[in-house]
């Protein structure tokens, strides 16, 4: 029997009407700010005090905020630094934010929101799919857009347009570095591929690794797949243990939490091979309590947030973040920081905030030093394949940089 009473229909309609009103007023508000933006752009020459607006259309809430919020923290510090030292082109820099809610369909909307607030350049979620919606709006509006960590070459001329750049590393580059390091530096002979087949980045990474590893004379003992939300990889572990020979290196193409589960269950089952993974597995948060003395685990990363990066500039930045908040958990915070300096350098070189002028400069960069990282772009390729990657080892629960190397072999980024 149902118990409970019915809400008076009138109240519900009233609530809907109130919401509609709110919407209506918001619409007018939106128009107003749009007009304001128009006014400012017309009067730019007259009043140079107007701030340069950087729009951040990222996941402030939801699952992806785990990666986006650290990047935003880096962005904020960069803006503080720049404002303290006179701004860009003599203008102060202002950050406006819009939340994509980690919802792939809210990306475009968030992009439009920051554009309406007058964004001169945009930072989006560090993923081709999730950042793409907002990035396309920036492209349409003729603004340069950066995804701090998107690992797909599609985030660029080919998939978005000529205004889109990523500071991330392609899966192909990441795995080439990993394979060359394993064979050349560590002298490993055998490898095993463990693929979390949920994202294309991970699929590309494992297939590229396999190609480079075998070309360099290494042997692939076997491969297996799992899903990021699997609560158990016991069957996959059993397959490895049944090999008869423990592989020297396990290439783990995954990200937390699935990747964390895999590492734990491998170690719990006494599989002691070295494990290498990508930047998504940076940080201590995913193992500090569950595998406190994790060893023999490696990642490839664009920068180290563990205080020993080859670039002093980056180490200084990390100190600042730590002092302000706490120890950063991934190098994405560095990329959020560098994104702002990328805009700064491009605007200053072009002496303009115009998107096309900035692109013209950026496409000529060859190991341009931006905030401690050397960036290389070409008109065709808006992802950096010449990056000196850091191989970071986790030994007894502590991170440290053990090698710095760029990919020697350049795999094709499309149609592989």
């Amino acid at each position, binding site marked *: *029997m*149902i*118990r*409970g009473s019915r809400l008076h229909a009138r109240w519900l309609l009233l609530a809907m009407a109130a919401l509609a009103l709110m919407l209506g007023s918001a619409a007018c508000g939106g128009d107003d700010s749009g007009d304001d933006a128009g006014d400012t752009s017309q009067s730019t020459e007259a009043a140079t005090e107007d701030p340069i607006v950087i729009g951040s259309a990222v996941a402030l*809430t*939801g*699952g*992806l*905020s*785990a990666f986006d919020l650290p990047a935003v923290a880096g962005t904020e510090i960069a803006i503080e630094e720049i404002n303290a030292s006179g701004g860009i082109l003599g203008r102060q820099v202002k950050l406006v934010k819009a939340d994509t809610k*980690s919802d792939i369909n809210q990306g475009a909307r968030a992009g439009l929101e920051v554009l309406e607030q007058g964004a001169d350049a945009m930072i989006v979620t560090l993923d081709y799919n999730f950042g793409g919606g907002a990035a396309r709006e920036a492209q349409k509006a003729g603004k340069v857009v950066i995804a701090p960590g998107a690992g797909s070459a599609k985030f660029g001329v080919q998939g978005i347009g000529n205004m889109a750049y990523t500071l991330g590393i392609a899966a192909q580059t990441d795995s080439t570095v990993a394979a060359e390091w394993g064979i050349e530096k560590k002298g490993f002979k055998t490898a095993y591929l463990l693929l979390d*087949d949920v994202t294309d980045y991970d699929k590309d990474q494992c297939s590229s690794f396999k190609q480079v590893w075998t070309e360099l004379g290494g042997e692939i003992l076997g*491969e*297996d*797949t*799992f*899903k990021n*939300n*699997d*609560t*158990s990889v*016991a*069957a*996959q572990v*059993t*397959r490895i*243990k*049944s090999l008869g020979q423990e592989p020297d290196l396990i290439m783990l193409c995954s990200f*937390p*939490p699935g990747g*964390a*589960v895999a590492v*734990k*269950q491998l170690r*719990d*089952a*006494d599989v002691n091979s070295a494990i290498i993974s990508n930047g998504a597995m940076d940080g201590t*948060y*995913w*193992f*500090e*309590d*569950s*595998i*406190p003395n994790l060893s023999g685990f490696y990642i490839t990363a664009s920068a180290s947030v563990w205080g020993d990066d080859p670039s002093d500039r980056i180490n200084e930045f990390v100190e600042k973040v730590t002092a302000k908040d706490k120890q950063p*958990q991934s190098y994405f915070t560095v990329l959020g920081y560098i994104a702002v300096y990328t805009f700064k350098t491009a605007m200053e070189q072009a002496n303009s905030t115009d998107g096309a002028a900035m692109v013209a400069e950026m496409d000529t960069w060859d190991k341009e030093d931006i905030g401690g990282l050397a960036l290389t772009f070409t008109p065709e390729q808006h992802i950096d394949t010449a990056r000196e990657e850091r191989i970071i080892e986790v030994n007894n629960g502590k991170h440290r940089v053990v090698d710095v190397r760029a990919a020697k072999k350049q795999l094709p980024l499309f149609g592989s």
Partner: protein
Amino acid sequence: MTEVLQYVIDGAALGSLYALFALGIGLIFGIMNLINFAHGELVMVGGYVLVFVSAPSTIVRVTLMIVIVIVFALVMERVAFRPVRGARADTLLVTSFAVSFLLQSLAIVLIGALQKSVGILSSLNESFTVGELSIRKLDVFTVAVTAGLLAALVVFLGRTRLGVQMRAAAEDFRMARALGVRANTVIATAFALSGLLAAVAALILVAQTGVVSPTMGLTVVLAAFIATIVGGLGSLTGAVLGGYVLGALTVALQATLPLGYRPYRDAFVFAIVVLVLILRPQGLISSRAVVERV
């Protein structure tokens, strides 16, 4: 041979976990026709309690976690499900979506989207060997705890007054009330029990995976949903059986599918599930037709 046995152990451990998930859902469904999607969030709450509560002894930590999860389950029943009791099945289901969504969103707002790692029962992470077989202590623990809980549940439902009342209510809620069985007591008991099951599931899950995240409940509840329906809705034996079948099927497919087809593993699982349901529309154990004792 060793390899096959090893897979059997993997399947048994995974199946036990699924059985615990499914039992928590099946218990509530039997009594109030509600597929409680928020059950997964009870597991999540349990996980976070283990993250944030550091007690000197594991026993205290786990006991505290169980108590908190049971309280959560009871509050959930009182606040969200009692007012819609007896409504259409879809209303009940969506109410539980809303509760689930609310708890997930709260967890993200209050704790953050980044998962946390947890160390619990780490002494069980070692393996011991029997012949050529290497067995994780945690797997043995999982199977044993599940079996123990099942036995306790059988005794409770079969031997106690409240247990008999619950079984009666599951079969014919209206008639049970006509005999004086208190609806509130029976439903609250069911939620407390499902809270207990969720807490134990959380303990085992977290010990196995070492991570807790705001969205971890979804995996739990999807596995439970499939297992209870395959097993036969409304039958607790069915829920347990469904859990083990799902666990075994997943491991078997993972072990035998050729590499190129392994990404499609879950698609095969679902296809087989549908096939089973076409052959046995009431599930493996049909609750109303077969006399059962659990």
